[in-house]
């Protein structure tokens, strides 16, 4: 049953989209492991393949044009990609649940909150109407919706964005899934609500012991939430490390760029750093490193050869020709700051 506490293991996952413009390699050889109770962050710019990775995990890639070309998604050692449609449906919502980015559109506008919540447990846990109803009320109370018993008969449009995201969380957690995938759960929300929602996810995760995959483009969000981080770019893992190590000592120029482009309230007012250029067109990637055209320390080899996935420590990998140098440089910068401070 438990493979050293590993819940989910993704190996060499490749998801391609066939477009008129050629094959888009949205996810190209992603591997990672997730232990029970662990929180993993996946960070990257728009179009880096973070959402596609997670839709691939529960096989929700629109097909056509999408197709999962190769790879394994092992949930408790069993490959989801080899499941029958019926088996996958039993995993969705029951063992792996998702929260989506926009709570405004992810609830059915024509269904009462009660029916949408009840559907989950009636479907997966065989609840009767009454059990499902009471369970739904309980879940709404759990996610902090006041006066849940009367609010449950509302329609989604009567709820604010933050409330709707709470409903989504209630829905996702109502079958006590082992894995919760939160796809940019706070992007569409006010900043004040963001922190509340994150805190709620964190608390419920601790209560239920679920593992969480948190997808975001906001490094501030993952910093306080996750144990480990994956940085994605152009469908590939660029860096993978514990959150602390990655913030402390990044081993990839792209990660460094991302970290520098976060506004720092303690810094003198000045121009905010931005990584030059735009994310690449994944349908037409150059032969070398996909980040080379935007990289600050690009060299000849970067444009020519695809970089290796270097193991800086057993738990810290970086996709760069100069991973070791960047890693050492980060350490020096950190120490220099430490001395000044």
């Amino acid at each position: 049953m438990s493979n050293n506490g590993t819940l989910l293991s993704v190996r060499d996952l490749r998801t391609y989209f066939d477009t008129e413009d050629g094959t888009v390699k949205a996810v190209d050889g992603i591997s990672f492991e997730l232990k029970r109770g662990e929180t993993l962050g996946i960070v990257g710019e728009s179009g880096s393949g973070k959402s596609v990775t997670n839709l691939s995990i529960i096989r929700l890639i629109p097909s056509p044009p999408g197709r999962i070309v190769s790879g394994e998604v092992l949930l408790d050692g069993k490959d989801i990609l080899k499941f029958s449609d019926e088996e996958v449906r039993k995993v969705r919502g029951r063992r792996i649940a998702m929260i989506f980015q926009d709570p405004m559109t992810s609830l059915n506008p024509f269904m009462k909150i009660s029916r949408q919540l009840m559907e989950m447990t009636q479907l997966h846990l065989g609840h009767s109407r009454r059990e499902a109803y009471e369970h739904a009320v309980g879940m709404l109370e759990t996610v902090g919706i006041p006066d849940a018993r009367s609010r449950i008969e509302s329609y989604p449009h009567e709820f604010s964005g933050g409330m709707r995201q709470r409903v989504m969380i209630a829905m996702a957690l109502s079958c006590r899934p082992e894995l919760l995938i939160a796809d940019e759960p706070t992007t569409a929300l006010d900043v004040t609500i963001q922190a509340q929602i994150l805190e709620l996810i964190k608390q419920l995760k601790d209560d239920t012991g679920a593992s969480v995959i948190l997808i975001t483009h906001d490094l501030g969000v993952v910093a306080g939430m996750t144990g480990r981080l994956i940085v994605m770019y152009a469908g590939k893992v660029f860096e993978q490390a514990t959150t602390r190590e990655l913030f402390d000592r990044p081993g990839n120029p792209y990660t460094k760029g991302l970290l520098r482009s976060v506004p720092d309230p303690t810094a003198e007012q000045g121009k905010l750093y931005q990584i030059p250029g735009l994310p690449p067109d994944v349908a037409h990637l150059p032969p070398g490193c996909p980040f080379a055209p935007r990289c600050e320390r690009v060299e000849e080899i970067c444009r020519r050869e695809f970089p290796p996935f270097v193991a800086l420590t057993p738990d810290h990998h970086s996709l760069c020709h100069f991973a070791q140098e960047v890693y050492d440089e980060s350490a020096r910068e950190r120490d220099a700051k430490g001395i000044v401070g």
Partner: protein
Amino acid sequence: MKDDHSPHDLHPPKVEVEPLPGTIPPLDGTLDANDIHTPPEAAIGEADLRAAEDGEVIKGNSLWRDAWRRLLKNKLAVLGMIVVAIITVASLFGPLVIKMATGITPDYIPGDAYLLKSFPPFTAPDGSFSWRHPMGTDSQGRDLLARVLQGGQISLMVGIISTLVSFLIGVSYGAVAGYLGGRVDNLMMRLVDVLYSLPYIIIVIVLLAMFRSQTARGQLILLFVALGSVSWLTMARIVRGQVLSLKNQEFVLAARATGVSTPRIIFRHIVPNTLGPVIVYATLTIPTVMLSEAFLSFLGFGVQAPLASWGSLATDGIANIAIFPWQLIFPGVTMALTLFSLNFLGDGLRDALDPQMRKF
């Protein structure tokens, strides 16, 4: 530390979060009996009651209620609704009332002075004023009012049942085609295109002629099926278009991510979202079908005697239009009034259910 720009200062600001009142309820369905205060239905009723007591509107917020309010603001639509309601009620109960009041049934052929003569409205056989036949009689001496009302039963039934048939076929067909998409969609919609290109009235005539039934009732059922089976095409297209735009919405993805089965997603999650345009179109289909029925009856393929519809009554009236104009005027005007009203109602519904006006 002031100059410390190191990135682990990026932790999100801690915000006081309101305490979570409950714990996650048990999953195994074992609920404490004390937990169940009221069954869902009772809870809803209570909320309504409270709202009523407080004199404030807590509910009254569903999308349908909004639409209903907008519909009531449209005077023409309300007028149409009233006229349709009156004609429907009159058709349903009118013949019965007339029979109880005067003993005349729609197909009663009198044996006295009225026999085989057509009298104008409010006229007795001797030419004096009489309440007995407010719409006069037909050429066999039958009371025209009773016949028009009974014809209304048939006409409305043809309109409503054929529209229901087209609704059922059209919505399921269109929703399945739209949701599955790709090759299936292509195939299904090409079939619709082919059927579209055939002149539908000829199909209906062929159907009716091929399966010509001996009884009037059998002919009527055949008429429902024939009209319904050709009028679903547009419905299927409308629903497919709606589903195409809906199926990529996030709530469908969310439903799939919770393990809901495909048929359930189509019919429980997506189809209710298409109902606005569907209802509008269905309302506008009723008069179209009724007109087709009249046309078919006019050609002799529709409703057979002794049953009558507005179409067949008008056909009878046409023969004597120069001498007994009321035989055409009364069924014709009643039908026109109904069609106008249904069209106004349909237009009103379209405005009321306009997706642009929906507040999400």
